[in-house]
């Protein structure tokens, strides 16, 4: 009972769930300020052009317009989420690089006036030849999208682990296959928004932004607008989903701040859905060739992996994305010898960025599909081949990942059992099939610059606990998980915790929500802070209870002595006593946490242990193909996930279920269709992400491990599950109709065509 957890591990509703259900939770667009102005961005109708002249005079004269800004007005500073890959201006300075590029902005007393004013801006362009295909783009003589970037290849990574040549020579079977993953939009329900306000006396800009990365946004705003970081305050209101799309800054942030500074009034920008589709970020389309050498028994000896990411017009997270797709090839399967080359190529198209899984879903699609192909060629069972190659805790990873806990093989077995693998694989009637695929994901990033989190815990006079955290809750429940961790450590209940999160003016540093690092990193920081506060209280209580502080346990609003639960004091009384003992109030604990590493890992230059820990998962799908229409229905998806020990199983399930449906969208329904650089389906009507009616039966199975580094043994649960639903589904399609699809999405049209060809 003493070791039992009270708050951690419980299925508790999010602390702000009721506010969300009441509609009172405030998203950026729900905030208004007296005298607030409304901004709007003018976007390029051309895929590639020089800006010769921008005439804003007519727009400026429209009654109600308060300001117009162009790229030339804003300091000549590039921004970007990855410092070494900065290549974007707040507004285009001399050139536009895709249809939708930010050209100018207006702000007016009403949104409709801003909409009208935008149309009065006249831009003279000199159209340049544009290129829409990465293979064309990397050729000599292709249009130059960014000056000085050779072959439009902004980032290339080549790595060899082990001795690939030798390993191929030793292989019994070598096959090479080529795959393609399409562009996918994150489509968070809340469109991107920002409101900025300026205090001329303090010289301080405050910005409310629907962002996953308040502190990175602060830095980039400071750099671009040339004001000290300390004078930029980023507040993150409720965020209506992100999935990676909000791991970046956008024209709306810079322009809102710029207008606020220059006009002295609050300014709001909200993107239309169309702008979210075209002018924010998307999952990179990727062309991948994998060559694998295996022993007859299915043991992987070597892999050669080549990938071309169609980056669109700017870098965004390019280097990180490419590096992730490389390093995570060696996990969850042991790949002792790997040669990887990856290229991020600019095209005159919408920009690729981080999206749930970040470079890994594309790679996993290729690898997990190829594993099934190899299994078929060698006459092996796809589940067996995965078990055979599974990495285990304590085993070495070619690039130096440290795997302390690993439930991968267990996840394969459990998922296979639950889907009925033995009875079904290859045995279902034509048109029905099962398939599975595995994956692994980091719980955040170790030891890269600024990847560390802080937290402050303050225990108030009434026993209420205030937590300050820089973590960015974007709907996944980060604030709740952190509060649970603090509550558990302090021995109080979730309802005793009040959390203030992500206000760069108040809360400690945190890199933000990406790489699924929040629970482990910000959670550990919060736990340390709670521990420090608790120690102060324990020192006092120990004296009163005549015990050693080390023997005290706080649980359920009480502090008692280990082994003698009768010797007890309520936390409320403890705090009262603490005050009357004239000890300094309030009790404050601070924590800062960074993943422990022996050597710095930057991914790009330095191998090593990439993350504090790694989650593992297997998805198993059962599908049915409508043999008449070609429509694939995902009937059931089992997902077995090792996320360590879940802090909140209900929230974990929610993450997994959302990921499954998202992954199904990627497999079957979603595709950002581009024609001559123009997105043809930039709407919720034409970009069809799954509705209630597409939802499969979803079964989530926990594979518990107790991770030594995660808080209370936790590992990530946010992104991993979105890595492999697509290959699991496409593998199941093979089982159903005997056709191997190498490209996503698998539409009814493709199915019908393939079945016809097969019939021939």
């Amino acid at each position, binding site marked *: 009972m003493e070791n039992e957890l009270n708050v951690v591990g419980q299925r508790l509703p999010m602390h702000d769930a009721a506010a969300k259900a009441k509609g009172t939770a405030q998203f950026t667009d729900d905030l208004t300020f007296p005298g607030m102005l409304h901004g709007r961005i003018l*976007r390029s*109708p*051309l895929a590639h052009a020089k800006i010769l002249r921008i005439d804003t005079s007519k727009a400026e004269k429209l009654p109600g317009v308060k300001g117009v800004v162009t790229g030339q007005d804003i300091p000549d500073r590039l921004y970007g989420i990855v410092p070494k890959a900065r290549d974007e201006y707040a507004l285009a300075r001399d050139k536009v690089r895709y*249809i939708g590029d930010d050209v100018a902005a207006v702000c007016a007393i009403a*949104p*409709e006036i801003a*909409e009208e004013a935008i*149309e009065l801006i006249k831009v003279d362009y000199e159209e340049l030849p544009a290129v829409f295909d990465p293979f064309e783009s990397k050729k000599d003589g292709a249009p130059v999208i960014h000056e000085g970037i050779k072959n439009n290849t902004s980032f290339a990574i080549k790595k060899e682990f082990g001795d690939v040549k030798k390993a191929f020579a030793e292989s019994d079977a070598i096959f090479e296959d080529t795959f393609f993953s399409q562009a996918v939009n994150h489509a968070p329900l809340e469109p991107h928004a920002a409101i900025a306000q300026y205090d001329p006396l303090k010289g301080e800009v405050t910005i409310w932004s629907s962002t996953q990365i308040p502190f990175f946004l602060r830095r980039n705003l400071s750099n671009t607008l040339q004001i000290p970081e300390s004078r930029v305050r980023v507040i993150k209101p409720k965020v209506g989903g992100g999935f990676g799309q909000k791991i970046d800054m956008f024209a709306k942030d810079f322009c809102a701040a710029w207008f606020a500074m220059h006009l002295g009034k609050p300014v709001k920008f909200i993107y*239309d859905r*169309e702008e979210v589709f075209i002018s924010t970020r998307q999952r990179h389309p990727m062309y991948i060739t994998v060559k694998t050498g295996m022993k007859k028994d299915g043991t992987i000896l070597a892999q050669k992996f080549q990938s071309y990411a169609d980056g669109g017009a700017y870098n965004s997270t390019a280097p990180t994305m490419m590096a992730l797709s490389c390093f995570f090839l060696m996990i969850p399967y042991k790949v002792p010898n790997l040669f990887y080359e990856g290229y991020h190529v600019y095209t005159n198209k919408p920009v690729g960025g981080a999206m749930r899984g970040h470079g890994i879903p594309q790679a996993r699609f290729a690898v997990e599909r190829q594993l099934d192909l190899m299994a078929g060629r060698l006459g092996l069972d796809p589940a067996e081949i995965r078990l055979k190659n599974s990495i285990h805790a304590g085993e070495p990873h070619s690039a130096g990942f440290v795997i302390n806990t690993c439930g991968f093989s267990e996840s394969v077995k459990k998922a296979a059992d639950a889907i009925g693998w033995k009875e079904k694989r290859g045995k279902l009637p034509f048109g029905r099939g099962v398939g599975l695929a595995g994956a692994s994901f980091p719980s955040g990033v170790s030891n890269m610059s600024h990847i560390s989190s802080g937290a402050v815990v303050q225990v108030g006079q009434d026993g209420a606990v205030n937590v300050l955290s820089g973590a960015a809750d974007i709907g996944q429940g980060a604030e709740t998980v952190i509060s649970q961790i603090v509550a558990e450590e302090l021995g109080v209940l979730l309802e005793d915790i009040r959390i203030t999160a992500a206000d760069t003016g108040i809360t400690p540093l945190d890199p933000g929500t990406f790489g699924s690092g929040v629970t482990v990193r910000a959670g550990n920081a919060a736990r340390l802070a709670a521990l420090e506060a608790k120690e102060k209280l324990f020192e006092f209580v120990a004296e009163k209870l005549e015990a050693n502080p080390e023997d005290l346990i706080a649980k359920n609003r009480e502090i008692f002595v280990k082994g003698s639960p009768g010797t007890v004091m309520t936390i409320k009384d403890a705090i009262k006593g603490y005050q009357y003992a004239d000890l300094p109030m309030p009790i404050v604990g601070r924590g800062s946490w960074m993943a422990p590493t022996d050597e710095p890992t930057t991914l790009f230059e330095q191998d090593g242990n990439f993350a504090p820990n790694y989650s593992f998962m297997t998805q198993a799908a059962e599908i049915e193909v409508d043999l*008449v*229409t070609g*429509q694939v229905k995902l009937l059931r998806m089992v997902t077995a996930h090792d996320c360590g020990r879940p802090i909140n199983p209900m929230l974990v399930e929610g993450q997994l279920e959302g990921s499954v449906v998202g992954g199904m969208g990627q497999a079957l*329904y979603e595709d950002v*269709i581009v024609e001559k650089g*123009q997105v*043809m*389906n*930039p709407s*919720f*009507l*034409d970009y*069809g992400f*799954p*509705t*209630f*009616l*597409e939802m499969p039966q979803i079964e989530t199975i926990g594979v518990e491990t107790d991770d030594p580094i995660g808080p209370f043994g936790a590992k990530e649960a946010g992104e991993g599950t979105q890595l492999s639903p697509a290959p699991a589904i496409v593998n199941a399609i093979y089982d159903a109709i005997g056709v191997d699809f190498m490209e996503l999405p698998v539409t*009814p*049209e493709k199915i*019908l065509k393939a079945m016809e060809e097969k019939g021939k």
Partner: protein
Amino acid sequence: MRLPKFRYIEPKSIEEASAFLLDEPGAKILAGGTDILPNMKHRVELPSVVINIKKIPELNTIRQDNGVIRIGALTPLKKVYESPIIAENLSALSSAASSVGSYHHQTMGTIGGNICQQNRCKYFNQSQWWRSARPTCFKAGGEICHVVNKEEVCYSAYSGDVAPALMVLDAIIILQSKDNSREMPLDMLFSGNGKAPLNLKEGELLTEITIPGKAKDGFSTYLKSANRESIDFPIVGTAFWASIKKKEYRVAFTAVDRKPLRGGSVEDFLKGKDLSEEVLEEASQIASKEASPVKTSVYSPSYKRKMMGLLLRSAIQEAMGREK
């Protein structure tokens, strides 16, 4: 995205509405608004006057009159498919109405608005800014077409779900203007001109749809293929009516041409035949040649043609072995 400016009017009678339409050539009818308002936000429809006809009381009714089913133009789709007379006897209509958009659209959208909806095209149903990346197309007021490189012709696709179902039920529509009223088979409403898809005379409104009692004597169905099971317009929709006893059949398609299309050749082929596996295969082949869809949507014309045949095949299969 804001709506453009317009003058707003709420007539209390059909005559009044018609008078406004006659007065103001730029006026447009608003029923449920679920089709016209998105188009207005996109600035592809810019009515000077919006005439909200929903306050005209008598147009939201379903009645049976000597076996003839009469549906007022303002009847919401939901009321159409929930009506027992329709659900029990005219399944093509009830499945078509319940396949429109999502439940919200079925609640808001009217049967008249569904029939009279604008044609669709991937270059047309886009925002003003989006369309500014290309020369203005013919339908939107310019001179060229991005789909078929012929001047001054628009190939936009009629994409309503309900019209083909009504067509196979031999529906008659009633059009009314200030001092006139006329009836015609529904087929005749559609001009086949992508730019102006409806044959409405000035001042005319669609007021009623009538379905002859005979329609109930047959089996009918509507099958829709779309990316998702909800929200989406049809990639192809196929309506089928069959009188197994009399060996009479009617077929209609949507989203494959500038108007909803009766399947003339396939009807000729089926006429007088008993439905069987062989008949079904051949009918399916013929059906896929009934139209020549063009690239007005992101789905390929060849896929659309294929689906015309396949949906008809499934529809016939459904009909086989029925009593009626």
